[in-house]
């Protein structure tokens, strides 16, 4: 594991992926540096999910290389990617609402006490771990690990899923549409969470439709359209308006809008 801020945690080098002859992604290169929020933008079907599947070991590129910490790596499974510190945080299935915070946080790696037949859960320890993990992300309201996750807000649940990934050694978090189903206030708390995570040197790959959300937290941006890189820029190089235009397809959108306006004025 490197902690060198100049070596990308993950790099895709001239990656192409086709499914049954259909090109989903072609000749894509990207690098995600430690402590960087990398925004992957594009409309539905642009190839964003294919890219994150290759970043997290769910799919393998047809051609091209995946490099972790500067070394060519062939992920055998999502678990393998996770062991290398690359974790996906799912919005819908990230947490279990009918289980407690402590049980959710430590699921599948529960701390235990006692030995042999009497080996049992150490819920006090699990609770302490969960509360500490949440506190590191600035969530101080949760003080009781036995609280049901279903009673927490959407933002807090995201925080719990992220805290869990970090606890298990994640250095790069893939957040797929983390604000999609959330209200304004909750979205803001998730964006704040991304800030907090970045300040701890963790890299984030953020997939979103929302140019405002991307613009407010992103360091590096990549706009995909039909599997190809449409644009790539750094923070401060483009305005929100320009980003929206790029995502929607620039010229195409403009002509569509002009058409709509002409139609409207002719009514």
């Amino acid at each position, binding site marked *: 594991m490197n902690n060198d801020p100049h070596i990308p945690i993950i790099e895709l080098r001239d990656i192409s992926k086709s499914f049954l002859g259909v090109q989903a992604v072609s000749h894509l290169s990207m690098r995600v540096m430690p402590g960087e929020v990398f925004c992957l933008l594009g409309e539905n079907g642009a190839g964003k999910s294919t890219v994150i599947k290759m970043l997290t070991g769910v799919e393998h590129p047809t051609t091209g290389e995946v490099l972790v910490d500067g070394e060519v790596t062939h992920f055998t499974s999502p678990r393998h990617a996770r062991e290398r510190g690359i974790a996906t945080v799912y919005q819908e299935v990230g947490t279990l609402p009918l289980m407690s915070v402590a049980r959710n946080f430590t699921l*599948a790696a529960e701390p235990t006490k006692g030995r042999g037949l009497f080996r049992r859960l150490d819920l006090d320890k699990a609770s302490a771990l969960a509360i500490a993990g949440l506190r590191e992300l600035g969530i101080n309201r949760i003080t009781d690990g036995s609280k049901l996750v279903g009673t927490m807000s959407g933002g807090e649940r995201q925080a719990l899923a992220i805290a869990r990934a970090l606890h298990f050694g994640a250095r790069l978090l893939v957040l797929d549409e983390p604000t999609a189903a959330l209200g304004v206030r909750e979205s803001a708390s998730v964006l704040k969470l991304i800030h907090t995570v970045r300040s701890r040197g963790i890299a984030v790959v953020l997939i979103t439709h929302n140019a405002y959300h991307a613009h407010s937290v992103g360091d590096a941006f990549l706009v995909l359209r039909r599997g190809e890189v449409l644009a790539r820029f750094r923070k401060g190089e483009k305005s929100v308006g320009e980003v929206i235009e790029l995502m929607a397809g620039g010229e195409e959108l403009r002509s569509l809008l002009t058409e709509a306006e002409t139609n409207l004025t002719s009514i």
Partner: protein
Amino acid sequence: MIGKDGISEALSPNMNPAVDARGATETGSAAALRRIILRPEIGGAISAVIVFAFFAMAAGSSGFLSLLGTAYWLDTASELGIIAIPVGMLMIAGEFDLSVGAMVGAASMIVAICTGYFGLHPLIGVGLAFAMAVVLGLVNGMIVTKTKLPSFIVTLSTMFMTTGAILGVSIALTGSSSISAVPTGLASFVFAYKWNEFHISLLHWSILAGVATWVLQSTRFGNWIYATGGNVDTARLAGVPTNRVKIILFVFSAIGAAFVGALQTYTFQNGSVTLGAQYVFSGIAACVIGGVLLTGGYGSLVGTAFGAMTYGIVSMGVFFLGWNADLTELFIGGLLLMAVMANNRLRRFAMGR
């Protein structure tokens, strides 16, 4: 959402420190009350108490409250309870097992044919019954996890197949679907011992309930059971071996049924293919009355025990009243409906909506 409905306060009473002493005690006791209401077994406890009170008043004078009456309903509850514990664990993990009823009859026939008809040692008969249970549980579990078909349909099929197969085998071997079997030696103690009318099944049930509750609440495997039923994708992505959890529980439920099959065979001194047919749904009913969610992920075995007691009280209460035994089903059906409705509200309440 948070703070309006009191759930968060119920679960973290320290949330609002800005209350005076009197207010704090009130909030404290209200929070304690909510905590009790939110326990999954509360519905089962209430229904057990209500039906007990009802039959104590109605049938108390006709023997329901006597030592014999108590022993009778506890025995009914114990046998159902032994079935319902693994069935409940499986339901919490998000799957049904309808084949337990057929399994009881099949195990009963295996024990009776081996020991009653061929005169083999009970160890062989019971051992064979358990071996068949393990195989059937594995088959159920493998089919459900590999095909991802609803376990309701898969175990309904294996239920029919088990009953058909054991009927065919016993007719071919013995020419009958009912064989007498008298327990000998250790078997007569383990399966048929009685102490002042109290059947040994009560002891088996108590031990099983204690151990299973401990496993479910306090071990990693128990945590995995809840997670698997809560959301199988979440659990799998977190690293829980969800298929293994389900297969183990299917095997466990088949073994529970085989145990009751052996128990009933030696108690009645007779094995029959149709033994245990009532457990197809009464096991699930006991779990649901006891607060286990049909959709999985929530419930407790203490509740399941209360559900089994409810069933035992109602069936023996109806018997002591001298009513038609069919009325038991009427009562249980009504209780089940109420339990499902109460459970739904409870879950929404627990989720704070």
